[in-house]
């Protein structure tokens, strides 16, 4: 019996060795996303989008004659885990490039590891300004930082006749960063900033914050958080009889899910978003958008997830393009090549420009930002 059991590790070792040998035939890309925890839904969407990109590239013969292999790890929506997972991907799986880590706080936690192991990461979702301004040359971001969102929004504040604005934001780097950047832009425009209220990442009852906002004399509320909390906020605002204009930022709203779950409470809300799956012809790259949406539906995924998943698709294509350009799957070469990448993304061309302190700049692409409005349970585009 003991001897028979002794066989098990041998078999395991042999399998691992064979597995390792097979692994050398592929080029690995590390994916660090929240698959459990508060952001599980969003992270899963991004990973599913990433898989579409990998399958598409592999179907066309891969890159440098090898297939791409996504090594996907769950950061549990927890910054500590995000850093640990990055370390595991780099040291144990030996990935030469990563994509991640959805949330700003998650990405910020990963960043020192990128410096330590000199491995680049494509940031697909995070929008805190800090990510590209603190001098981490291994960061290449395709999502808009909140300052870019604020700048895009600048054009429409006159049309909306904003006078006094309250904020209700998630209490992390993403939410607080957005409140800061939007406040700055609005003050320049002569708009008064009223309350800045926050809510915890997992909080379900925001009635207290909303009651406070209801009693203020502002006419608009800027809300920044992920889709689940947005749904709750719209329902609770309706229950409190809060009649102010609500505008959400951050691009993680999944408007279709909001319509399905918040119902009439979602009507009249406006959302700053970075992708237009409802109007493929109005996107910068209609052909690719249509391909992506068709593939997404073919795989049986919920259409509502498109507004998140396209980032995973774009992120992997950017990383793959850099590997191809580098000519080898090595971190330093990929990092250098990312500066020369030009990918037709679903939301505009992915081209990295320098951002942050001189000599150690991060890469920042400039994606488009759109404003949509939910009216009678349908999504309408507003011109910015």
């Amino acid at each position, binding site marked *: 019996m003991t001897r028979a059991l002794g066989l098990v590790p041998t078999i395991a070792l042999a399998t691992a060795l064979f597995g390792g040998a097979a692994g050398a035939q592929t080029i690995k890309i590390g994916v660090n996303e929240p*698959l*459990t*925890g*508060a952001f*599980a*839904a969003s*992270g*899963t969407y991004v990973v599913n989008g990433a898989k579409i990109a990998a399958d598409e590239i592999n179907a066309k013969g891969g890159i440098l004659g090898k297939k791409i292999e996504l090594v996907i790890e769950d950061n549990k929506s927890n910054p500590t885990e995000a850093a640990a997972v990055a370390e595991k991907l780099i040291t144990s799986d030996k990935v030469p490039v990563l994509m991640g880590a959805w949330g700003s706080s998650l990405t910020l936690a990963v960043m020192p590891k990128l410096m330590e192991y000199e491995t680049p990461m494509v940031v697909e979702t995070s929008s805190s300004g800090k990510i590209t301004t603190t001098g981490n040359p291994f960061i290449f971001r395709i999502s808009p930082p909140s300052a870019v969102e604020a700048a895009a929004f600048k054009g429409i504040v006159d049309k909306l006749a904003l006078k006094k604005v309250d904020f209700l934001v998630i*209490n992390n780097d993403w939410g607080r960063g957005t409140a800061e950047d939007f406040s700055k832009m609005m003050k320049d425009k002569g708009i008064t900033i009223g309350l800045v*209220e*926050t*809510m*915890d990442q*997992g*909080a*379900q*009852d925001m*009635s*207290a*914050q909303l*009651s*406070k906002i*209801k*009693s203020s004399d502002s006419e608009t509320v800027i809300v920044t958080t992920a*889709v*689940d909390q947005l*749904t*709750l906020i719209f329902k609770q605002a*309706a*229950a*409190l*009889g809060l009649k102010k204009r609500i505008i959400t930022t951050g691009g993680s709203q999944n408007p279709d*899910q909001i319509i*399905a*779950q918040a*119902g*009439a*409470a979602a009507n009249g809300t406006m959302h700053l978003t970075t992708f237009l799956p409802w109007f493929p012809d109005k996107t910068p790259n209609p052909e690719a958008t249509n391909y992506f949406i068709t593939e997404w539906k073919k795989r049986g995924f*919920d259409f509502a*997830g498109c507004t998140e998943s396209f980032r995973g698709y774009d992120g992997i294509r950017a990383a793959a393009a850099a590997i191809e350009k580098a000519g080898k799957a090595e971190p330093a070469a990929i990092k250098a090549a990312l500066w020369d990448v030009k990918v037709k993304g679903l939301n505009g061309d992915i081209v990295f420009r320098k951002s942050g302190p001189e000599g150690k700049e991060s890469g920042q692409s400039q994606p488009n930002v759109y404003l949509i409005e939910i009216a009678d349970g349908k999504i309408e585009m507003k011109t910015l």
Partner: protein
Amino acid sequence: MSEFLQHLINMLVLGGTYALLGIGLTLIFGIMNVVNFTHGVLYTFGAYIMFIVVQQLGLNFFLALPVAVLAGWLLGAVIELTLLRPLRGSDIDTTMLVMIGAWIAMQSGTLWIWGGVAKSVATPFPEAPLVLGPVSVSWLRLFVLAAAALLILVTYLLINKTSLGRAMRATFQDHDTASLMGVNVDMIYTSTFAIGSSLAAAAGALLGPVYVIFPQMGDLAAVKAFAIVILGGLGNITGAVIGGFILALAEELGAGYVSSGYRDAMGFLIIIAVLIFRPTGLFARAERVG
């Protein structure tokens, strides 16, 4: 002033649900002395039962509530029979570790079955709120408050006025003596855990439709339940109810007039104060020690 009134209404509605969370846990943690980490998952389980019955099977909302309570009762009984019964008599750390394991396994199970995307449950209540002068409150929340009050009353009567309740209190006070008096101790353990679990599931079934349903929804609920139980005194039903309202009041006023960033910290500041000045909880009766 109208803002203050709105905060008070919010407190009443929130406090009722906190009280419901608290009484289920006070039975298990307070009376049985099991540090029940599965309380939050049972809460989540109750909410998913609502989702299955109302959204997937298309049955009546009011029919789904007792189904969720019954399902919570059954799951609680299964946990007691399979995990806790073999561990009876072992130290509190071992039981705690097993319960943590059960919590993680069950939470991952819900994620595996239903995925991470939040679900919502349609209710028969109108979307327009009830407006009373400067304050307004949703009909659904009023219904939840009434249902919670009913469940709390039933539990109170069960523990304090029935022979089952007397047997429960006797068993957890002195297991051997109760057994000598002819109490079926095994049955009491299982039914106490099952009743506590059914209350957690009831809370989830009532609150799931108010909020959204997702695998981690029980985590914060469980943390608050523990806070309420400690606040009110272990095993004290009245204490858990009042503790629930105190926590809700602290959160509402803390978020409304101090800072919303510390909303979830307010309750815990109170608990620290209680543990310093009245370590047995606000409403615990004086007990003979030793």
